[in-house]
Structures are given as C-alpha cells and as structure tokens.
C-alpha cells in the first residue's frame, strides 16, 4: 500500500511504528513512494501560496513536491524531525537559498499572486517584504541602535535622523526590548544576553515593516524564560504580520500557531489547525511524531 494519504486509523499507525522494518508503508525512515499532503493545506485569504515545490542541493533532493498556503496574519508552525527540510523550505520563501551553492528550487511560490522565482523579481525587495529571524541570534557587531537602523538605512525608509530614531524606538518597543536597552542604545548589540539578542534580531527584522516574518527555530538557543518572552512577542506580532515559524518544540508550536505543518524527510505530510494536529492527527506519521515515537 503506497498511498499514504489514505492512511489514518490508529491501528495502522501503531503497526507501522512498532514494526518499521516489516516493509509496511509508513516507516519513519523511508520516503513514501507516492505521496500527497493530508489536511487543510489551502486557505482562503492566502498571503503566500506554495505549489509543488521541490528543492535540490546539487543532486540531492531536500524538499519533495510541497504545496501549502500561508494565510494572512496567520502563524503557521512547521514541525518535524531534524533534517526533514523545514528550514530549507522556509529559506525558499525569501530566496535565502540563493546564497547556498548548488541549491535549486522548482515549483511555484507566490506572494499576493506575485511569482517569487520570476526572473523579473527583485530579490532585495522581496527580502525586505519577507523578513527572517535565524536560529542563532546574529546581531551585527554594531551598536543596538545601528542594528535596528540597518534595514531602514539601506532601504531609505527614514529621511531624517528623527524619523530614524522613531523607527528604531518603535521597532524595539514592538520587540518588547525597548525598556531594557533604551539607556544603552549605543552599546554593542553583541553584549546583550542571548534572549535579548534574539529580540534585537526580531526588532531588526520588523524595522523594515515586512509583510511576512520567517522564523527558523528562533528559540532553540534560548532558555525557557527568554523563550516565553519570544512566544509572547510572536503572538503580539501576529496581529500585524504573517509568521511562519520552524520549531523543534511541539509545545511551542501548540502555543503560538494557528496551523501546524508536519514535515517528514522532505515531504509535507500533514497541515491542519494546530489543535487538531495535536489532538487528532490525520496521518499516522504525524501521530507517531507528536506522541514521541521518533524524532
């Protein structure tokens, strides 16, 4: 039986997980030969719409035929075992994969109907509209102020110093970092704690008023308290931004997202409202993963 899409009963899932070597269809260590995503991967007011995307690193295929929509002002979480392609997929959305040698993206990715991989598209402008926060906080070795002002400066968003000050303050406030750093704006951003650095990176990303923010495991290098602050922040930000977040923590996905996408070995297995994914997953692999049988 190869069409994993039709799977869904508990029995089959149990069988598959307990005896992964028997050659039944849903071994967590093999790709499904034929595969279709289950669940509600299409939404009505899509901000971004991804259709049949394949990503290759040289000869190696990392993403297999992924189709999913990202709704406006939605927080979508992407979960899955290490190496399942979540990050690769995320980096395809603002073309950060362009910087990786030998990386090739096929398929159709659109934002507001505009083809992101069209030769006419200006990557620089795209990345200003689709911001990104990385796994490890990577503030520039500049002052806190200059970190936040970096984007506005290169995009000419502020005509005067006063404008710029205002943008910096607003971004830091939205990243709920202002109160902690307002007295030391001109000290090095690298001198902040890990959690503060990550919020600084978020402030830096939102300073250019992007429409979408991609977050690649933004809390994996942080302690629980810093993580809680970032999660609060994500919730606040979701009022104004569309957010796609990759996370290793299923609790985090459950806390912050409206929809959750489960990736497995480069395939998008299931997309459903978060609550459903964590209570009644449709797919056997999803269930195995969220119940901690592997991953």
């Amino acid at each position, binding site marked *: 039986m190869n069409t994993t899409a039709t799977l869904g009963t508990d029995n089959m899932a149990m069988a598959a997980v307990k005896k992964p070597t028997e050659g039944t269809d849903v071994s967590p260590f093999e790709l499904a030969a034929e595969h279709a995503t289950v669940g509600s991967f299409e939404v009505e007011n899509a901000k971004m719409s991804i259709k049949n995307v394949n990503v290759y690193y040289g000869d190696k295929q990392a993403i297999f035929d992924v189709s999913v929509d990202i709704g406006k002002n939605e927080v979508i979480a992407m979960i899955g075992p290490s190496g399942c392609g979540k990050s690769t997929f995320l980096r395809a959305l*603002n073309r*950060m994969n362009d*910087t990786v040698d030998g990386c090739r993206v096929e398929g159709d990715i659109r934002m507001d109907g505009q083809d992101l991989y069209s030769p006419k598209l200006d990557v*620089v*402008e*795209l*990345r*200003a*509209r689709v*911001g*990104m926060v*990385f796994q*490890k906080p*990577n*503030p*520039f*070795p*500049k002052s806190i102020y200059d970190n936040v002002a*970096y*984007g506005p400066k*290169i*995009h000419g968003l502020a005509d005067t110093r006063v404008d710029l000050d205002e943008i910096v303050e607003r971004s830091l406030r939205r990243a709920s970092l202002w109160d902690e750093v307002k007295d030391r704006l001109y000290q*090095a951003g*690298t001198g902040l704690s890990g959690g503060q650095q990550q919020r600084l*990176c978020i402030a*830096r*990303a939102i300073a*250019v008023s992007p429409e979408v923010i991609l977050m690649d495991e933004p809390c994996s290098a942080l302690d629980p308290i810093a993580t809680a602050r970032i999660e609060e922040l994500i919730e606040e930000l979701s009022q104004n931004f569309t957010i796609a977040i990759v996370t290793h923590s299923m609790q985090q996905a459950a806390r912050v997202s409206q929809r959750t996408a489960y990736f497995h070995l480069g395939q998008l297995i299931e997309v459903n409202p978060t609550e459903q994914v964590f209570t009644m997953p449709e797919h056997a692999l999803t269930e195995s993963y969220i119940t901690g049988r592997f991953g």
Partner: protein
Amino acid sequence: MQASNVFFLLMGLATLGFYLGRGRSLALAKDLRGIRDLHSLPNYYGYYTALWCGLPALLLLCIWVVADGSVLTGVVMESLPSAELPSDSVEYTLLANKISNLSIGVLPSAGQPDFLLDAAQQLRYLTQLSSWIMAVAVLALAMVGLIWGRAAVSANFRARQRVEKVVQYALFACACLAIFTTLGIVLSVLFESLQFFKSVPVADFVLGLDWSPQTAIRADQVGSSGSFGAVPLFAGTLLVSVVAMFIAVPIGLMSAIYLAEYANRSVRAYAKPALEILAGIPTVVYGFFAALTVAPYIRDVGEGWGLSVSSESALAAGAVMGVMIIPFISSLADDVISAVPQAMRDGSLAMGATHSETIRRVVIPAALPGIVAGIMLAVSRAIGETMIVVMASGMAANLTFNPLDSVTTVTVQIVTLLTGDQEFDSPKTLAAFALGLMLFIVTLILNIVALQVVKRFREQYE
C-alpha cells in the same frame, strides 16, 4: 669526549629512562587492577623519568659548553709569566686568541716564543681533561636523575601534572626567547647608537635637514661635510612607503574582497596562489624591474606631460614596492573576511541588503582588525624594504615630497654605511645604528597607533 657525543649519549639515556619509568609503572599496575589504578597513564611516568634524566644533565652540559672556553683560557693566562702578560685589555684578548689558535693548530707553531707554546700545550691538555670531566659529570647527573625519577614512580604519583608543568615551562621559555632576542637586538643597536650620539648631538641627528655622512680622512678633503641630519631619510622612507601603500592597500583589499566574496571555488583555487606568487619574487628582481622598466617608463610618460622626472624616482620604487606587498594585504584580508561568520551575511541579506551593501556595512567592519593587521604588516615591509629603493629611487638624500624626484631611505643608507671597509669608531659607521634605532622606534610607534585605532573601531562578533 665531544659535547655532541655526550648530547647523543644523554638522549639515549633519557630514552632508556622513558622505558624504565614506563616499565616500572606497568609493573606496579600489574599488582593492582591494571592501568586504571595508576594516577597517570604509563607514558607519563616514562616522560617524567626521562625528564629527570635528561633535563638537569642537559642544563649542566649547556653551561659547561658555554663557560668552558673562557674559564680554561683564563686559567692558562693566569699561569703565564707576569712579564709577558699585557696590561691592555685588547692586547690581552689578542694574546689569548693566539694561544687558543696555537693549541688547535690553526696557527703554525714555528717561530713562536716558548712560553706561548707551553701555554698552548697546557690549554690543549686542559681542554681535553675538561671535556672528559664534562662527559663523566653530565652522564653521572643523568644517571642520578634517572634513578631519582624512576624511584618517584608510584601508583599515586601525579606524573601527568608534573610533566605538563614542565611542558608549560618549556612553552614559556620559547616565548621568552623571542622577547629576549628582541631585547638583545635593541640593546646592541642602542649601545652603538649611544657611541654615535657622543660625536653627533641627538638634536642634530633627529632634526637635521642635511644628510651627507662622508667624514674627512684628511683635513684638506673636499665634500666631506659629515652632517648627519636624518630628516631627509625619513622623509624619503615615508614618501616611498606612502606611494607603495597607495598602490597596495586598495588593490590588495579589493582583490581580497573579490576572492573571499565573489570568486567561485575554481577561480579562487587558481587566483589566490597566483597572487601569492608575487610575494615569492625576490626583491632584487623587483628592483631591476623597477629600475629598468618602470622608472624609465614613468620618466618618459612624465616628460610627455612636460614634467621633469628624475630617472630614478620615488614613484617608481614605491609603485613596484606596492605591487610586491599586495599579497601581504590580500592574503591576510582574504583570510579574515572568510572568517566572518556566514550568519552575519545571512542576517544582512535577509534584511534585503545587496551583496555589496552586506560587504561594505557588515563584513568589512567585522573583519577590520585583521585587515588593519595585514596593512600594518605591509607597512613594516614597505619601511624595511631596501633593494627596490636602492635600484629604483637612487641614493641622493633629497628632502622632498615630490614623488617624481629621486630620494633615499633609511634602510638604503644603513646598507651603504655598513658595506665595504668600516671603522667602528667613526660616526659615519655608527650612524647606521642610530638610524636603525630611529627606524625601530618609528615602526614601534606606528604599531601602537594602529593597535589603538583598531581597538576603537573594531566591531567584535562572536
């Protein structure tokens, strides 16, 4: 026995010590539950024994070899009939040398006075005796050390820490060696310079605008003013170095940026070694390239524009020197630019910055300390360079800032002052040391300034 033979014997003994110490620890381990009950691994006990065997004996050997000659000569000189003993210290040294040469047989003994031959004979005898005593003493000490070190081996003995302590001291000694060498060089230059400043006032040297170091041998000689104003030389050095840096810094930096940021792997694999070949060309070759090709070319072009260009110009020397030091800057800058974490670039690119904005605003500032270090290295190289300047910019100590004139540099003058026959009591020769001292001070100040600049402007990434 010769010192080298003793040394090899000593090394043999130390090796033996290693196996003895190791063997003893293994024997101990056998009675326990194996190696795990020893405090350290067996090799550490071996090293410990070998160190006890080798180190003190080696130290004794070194001291003996260093002190041997002068002590023995002193003894022999003491035994000379006091009537023959010169009172002058120079004469004394000469006589001592004569005796030692006679004893080795470098000087034929025919026709030498008897007392000298006797002394030489005695020296020969003493030397032989001393070398045998040395061999016995050193090897005996080694044996004692070996027994001592091996006796210390026990299951609870912390050989690991002891050995590592010794290694730490060895590392410290190596670090000191570099510092003491520098100190020694400075002192040797300093003392000769002080000699020089006895005949030429410091102010005249540092502030004087006229350099013509020819001193008169006869009173009626012409053109032997003997004035030692170093300013024209430092001006020349500065001029040539500035020209060189104007060429090397932009080209070096930009090629580094290209190599580190834009070039793909295959281009880089060929371009980088090719650039570094520039550093491998002997400076003499650069020198005649500058003198025969570049300098006449610059003169011709200059004349075409109606400028008067000397056929040996600071511009020619500086330009060729600049090309020579490009790889110093490009290679170091390339390394530090490549070392800037990819996360920095990703952060900037993800903000919608272009590649070039990322390089200018994030990568270069982060790499700045390393880049400045490369530039400083290049500046020291430029200031110290001699060959190209000798050949391409002439010897005339003109005080000028016109790069089309011929100038001379500090290092060139040091070379000219110290080549050929010299008398070490004339200011002409001693001036070389004073110049060296000044040059040292100037480069030191430059380095300190550069360090401060870097400290202020660095952007440190983690």
